[in-house]
């Protein structure tokens, strides 16, 4: 089978070329490795930021205080109305007796103070705890709840939540920009290596042309060479990131500094990291060599 034979010859030519100029290949593989390590670290970072953000978002709750003059029917109606708001995912009712019991259990001081009050004179208020799906619209949702009759007060830690969300958005965007920039740099590195290979093999290419090699037969090995370089460049980053992150996760006990910042379990993301790094290496290798062949292989 002619095409299959030509395909395998192209691959073996590409491998030969990688090893023939081994010092050059090694230099570019090292550069690609360093770049991809940074890329993989950024990806891990972005996974963790995402998970932390969503953890925090899950914790953000709107507290709705019900007016003490509300009857129990009115109070139920408030619950139902809140439940009908589009952004609301969960509504949980806490009566003032429950809150009183909770607070008494929490500390002796509270217990001493609250003992003075019975069910009738309880100064606390019934509350609804509300979770939302889209944290960025939490302000609007709070305003909407505020409009409901007999709702006295709506609290959700205004300002703090928005700030946190903003900061994480910025961190995420910077990570994306860094990753994209590094990928572009890698593509240029590979392109440059292939360019040098092409120059080294000028004579061979000239003779190939003379004896009747088709353009694709001449060009394809260079694509494979770029792909091989990209692939070899992923080996070290994958090893470092998989074992390094798992090790770090174990040492830190799955959290960063405090219980609040939980790290993502390596088992959940390691395959994705491997896949992403491999894909970036190979695709970038192909693109880099494509560019070099387009610009420097004039046949």
């Amino acid at each position, binding site marked *: 089978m*002619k*095409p299959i*034979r*030509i395909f395998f*010859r192209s691959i073996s030519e590409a491998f030969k070329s990688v090893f023939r100029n081994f010092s050059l290949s090694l230099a570019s593989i090292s550069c690609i490795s360093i770049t991809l390590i940074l890329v993989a670290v950024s990806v891990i970072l972005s996974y963790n930021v995402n998970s932390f953000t969503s953890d925090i978002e899950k914790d953000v709750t709107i507290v709705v205080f019900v007016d003490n003059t509300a009857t129990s029917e009115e109070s139920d109606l408030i619950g139902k109305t809140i439940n009908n708001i589009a952004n609301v995912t969960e509504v949980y009712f806490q009566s003032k007796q429950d809150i009183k019991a909770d607070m008494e259990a929490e500390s002796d001081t509270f217990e001493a103070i609250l003992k003075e009050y019975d069910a009738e004179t309880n100064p606390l208020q019934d509350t609804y705890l509300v979770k939302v799906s889209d944290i960025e619209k939490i302000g609007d949702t709070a305003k909407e709840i505020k409009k409901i009759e007999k709702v006295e007060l709506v609290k959700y830690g205004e300002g703090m939540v928005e700030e946190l969300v903003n900061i994480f958005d910025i961190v995420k965007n910077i990570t994306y920009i860094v990753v994209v920039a590094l990928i572009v740099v890698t593509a240029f590195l590979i392109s440059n290596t292939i360019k040098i290979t092409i120059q080294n093999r000028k*004579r*061979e290419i*000239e*003779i*190939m*042309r*003379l*004896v*009747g*090699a*088709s*353009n694709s*037969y001449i060009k394809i090995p260079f694509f494979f060479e770029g792909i091989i370089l990209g692939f070899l460049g992923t080996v070290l980053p994958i090893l470092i990131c998989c074992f390094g992150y798992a090790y770090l996760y174990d040492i830190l006990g799955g959290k960063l500094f405090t219980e609040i910042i939980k790290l993502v379990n390596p088992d959940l993301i390691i395959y994705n990291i491997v896949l992403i790094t491999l894909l970036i290496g190979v695709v970038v290798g192909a693109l880099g060599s494509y560019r070099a062949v387009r610009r420097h292989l004039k*046949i």
Partner: protein
Amino acid sequence: MELIYFKNVYKQYKNGVNALVDVNLAIEKGDFVFVIGASGSGKSTLIKLLYREEKPTRGDVYIGGIKVSKLRNRKVYKLRRKLGIVFQDYKLLPKKTVYENVAFALLVYGLKETEIRKRVLKALDQVGLKGKYRSYPDQLSGGEQQRVSIARAIVNNPKVLICDEPTGNLDPETSKEIMDVIESINKEWGTTIIMATHDKDIVNRMKKRVLLLDKGMLVSNKEKGGYSK
């Protein structure tokens, strides 16, 4: 129809040099033709038009039914597979053995290993180098290197063998041997030979058809011609 056919061919290079002016000629299958002329007479240009290294400015060149003058870059390889080309500087790959250098031409076609082996050995036999197929080019004499390049040129069984000053770097004795090889290919394989040369002795001795170029014009086209006018 003739194997090779030039019709009102002009070639002007970008620097304004008129390398060929209104050249018309026809070469039959199995012919042996010398192209001679002083330096700058257009010999090399005529040869380069044959293997489509250059395109004519005007006019048409046909080889074996292919309109070479209008051939797209992408399709040039189809023409080259029907040609064998031999150069003054051999153009061998120094890191490949004699066998690999000759096989190179067939590898690019995607032929089977056994088929390649058969053809390479046949070509090396034809040029008298069968015993040296494991050597590297720098272990061979100039004449032997030129034989390797001839073997590479004929290994694909070309219709036309184009030779651009094949004896330019060789002493008279070796040149004669090379000419014997080329003539045997012409006689035994029926391959059409077109050879540009400066070597008066060879042309005068071999009594073949001679095309004489002067300032880009084809001034004489003689059967069994010689170098002297």
